[in-house]
């Protein structure tokens, strides 16, 4: 039977729009999966975004979705929706590389909990997506620290996509999948989301099961969605959240996306540091950031100047990640396999991590208790914090990442520049929203809330995106054909 044409707009449509069109039989799930697979297999490798195509199993699942829909067995908005998963999530009997050459042939006999959950909703896993090797390990110097090469930004392929969920962000930005799963230990969902101009959600620690995911840091790792909109993030989070006895860090909580029942925006206080939106960001983006603040204000929230408690966030999170990563990969390091990684800085960081003393690790974890307490006090006075997700646009792919990405002097007032490590250390949820451009590259704001306040963040995000269209912009490749 000849396939029906899939209009280009569908590659950039929302989850709800696609699901409605499937129900209306404008196209079948098989036709949709085929069109997206063609696109993912053709464009994905050119952005170094694809680790493994799962065309065959996805198409078998798509046939089942079509059968279910014919019988009017509807399984919710994610039914028939094509997606991709960061290649640190196990998918039984298929390679799971963790983005690293030494693990290129690794195959598990089980499937990650989040992938099983999405399968139950009828979502179609089209492929495993590229990532920075070992999700970045303790640190890395170059964007090329990956089995698949540097993630190339769809907005400018000479620039980096961000990482470590690089393929996930690229695939969503370029319309290769409708949504993707990524992971964050400290910035690995928010950074690529910001650099690629998409919407990314880092859930509260423990809300989403990590069973079947590579561990980098037991006390920091989170799995979350990268999507085109806040609403899509809410729909995906509802499907993947929930308690899991196979994840020792599971909070045992579910999540129901219910923006209609969230608190009235007029009751919300949003804390911010004015310096972040002035000297703290790229000058080319300041006007857009000023508008973003104005848009937030127009939603009815009250903006109030707030300070982040002073802690050595960098040394604390660095000590914790290095210690836990070295413990997790101890055998890999001591066997010498570590030397097969691509990035010399990561190799050295993993080796040196084995030498961190228990005293220093525990000191970092004890100060972390104070950080959690300090942030609880911040949230006694405010409901949500807002700051630029990253202060600069995506760097060139050859630019060393362990040096300042901008020539601008560091602002006298650090504002919320440490919000990514601070939020991760406290296990807080965060939502990154596109809010403008700097010299043609996307810029974004992040909203950070109390633990398990995802509905509040998503409600603000949805309202923000009803008044702006940054999240609907497409990279030049697709804009040319739109």
């Amino acid at each position, binding site marked *: 039977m000849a396939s029906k044409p899939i209009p280009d707009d569908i590659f950039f449509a929302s989850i709800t729009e696609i699901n409605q069109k499937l129900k209306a039989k404008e196209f079948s799930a098989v036709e949709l999966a085929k069109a997206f697979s063609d696109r993912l297999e053709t464009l994905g490798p050119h952005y170094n975004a694809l680790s493994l195509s799962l065309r065959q199993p996805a198409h078998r699942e798509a046939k089942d979705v079509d059968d279910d829909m014919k019988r009017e067995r509807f399984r919710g908005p994610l039914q028939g929706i094509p997606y991709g998963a960061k290649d640190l999530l196990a998918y039984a009997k298929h390679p799971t590389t963790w983005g690293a050459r030494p693990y290129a042939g690794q195959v598990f006999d089980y499937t990650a909990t989040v992938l099983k959950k999405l399968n139950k909703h009828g979502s179609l896993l089209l492929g495993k997506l590229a990532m920075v090797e070992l999700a970045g390990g303790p640190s890395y110097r170059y964007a090329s620290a990956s089995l698949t090469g540097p993630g190339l930004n769809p907005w400018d392929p000479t620039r980096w996509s961000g990482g470590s969920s690089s393929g996930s962000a690229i695939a969503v930005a370029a319309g290769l999948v409708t949504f993707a799963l990524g992971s964050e230990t400290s910035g690995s969902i928010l950074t690529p989301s910001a650099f690629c101009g998409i919407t990314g959600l880092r859930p509260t620690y423990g809300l989403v099961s990590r069973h079947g995911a590579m561990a980098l840091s037991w006390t920091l790792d989170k799995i979350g969605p990268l999507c085109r909109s806040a609403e899509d993030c809410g729909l995906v989070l509802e499907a993947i959240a929930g308690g899991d006895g196979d994840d020792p860090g599971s909070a045992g909580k579910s999540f129901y996306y219910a923006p209609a029942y969230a608190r009235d925006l007029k009751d919300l206080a949003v804390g911010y540091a004015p310096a972040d939106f002035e000297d703290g960001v790229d000058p080319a983006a300041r006007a857009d950031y000023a508008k973003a603040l104005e848009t937030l204000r127009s939603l009815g929230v009250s903006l109030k100047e707030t300070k982040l408690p002073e802690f050595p966030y960098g040394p604390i999170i660095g000590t914790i990640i290095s210690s836990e990563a070295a413990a997790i990969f101890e055998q890999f390091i001591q066997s010498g396999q570590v030397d097969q990684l691509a990035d010399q800085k990561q190799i050295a960081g993993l080796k040196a991590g084995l030498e*961190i003393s228990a005293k220093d690790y525990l000191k970092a974890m004890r100060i972390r208790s104070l950080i959690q307490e300090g942030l609880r006090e911040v949230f006694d006075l405010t409901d949500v914090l807002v700051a630029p997700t990253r202060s600069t646009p995506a760097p060139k792919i050859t630019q060393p990442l362990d040096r300042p990405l901008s020539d601008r002097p560091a602002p006298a007032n650090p504002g919320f520049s440490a919000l990514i490590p601070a939020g991760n250390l406290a296990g807080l949820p965060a939502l990154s929203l596109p809010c403008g451009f700097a010299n043609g590259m996307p810029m974004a704001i992040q909203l950070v809330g109390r633990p398990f306040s995802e509905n509040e963040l998503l409600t603000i995000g949805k309202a923000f995106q009803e008044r702006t269209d940054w999240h609907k912009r497409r990279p030049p490749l697709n804009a040319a054909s739109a």
Partner: protein
Amino acid sequence: MAAQISRRKLAVVLAAPALVAQTPTASQPQDPGQELAAAREQNRQNAEQLAKFPLPMATEPATHFRA
């Protein structure tokens, strides 16, 4: 096939690896011994920062992550 990519689109995408190849590689010391020394020095500096932070005995490690 409806989902095929036009030649114009493909040309843009296929140019990406070429652009990458034209970009000069940043020079960085990649000597493994130097890298390891630098990583150890980073850990030492981190420990120094942590040591400046006095903590009362009752401050326990963050092992619970609850709302």
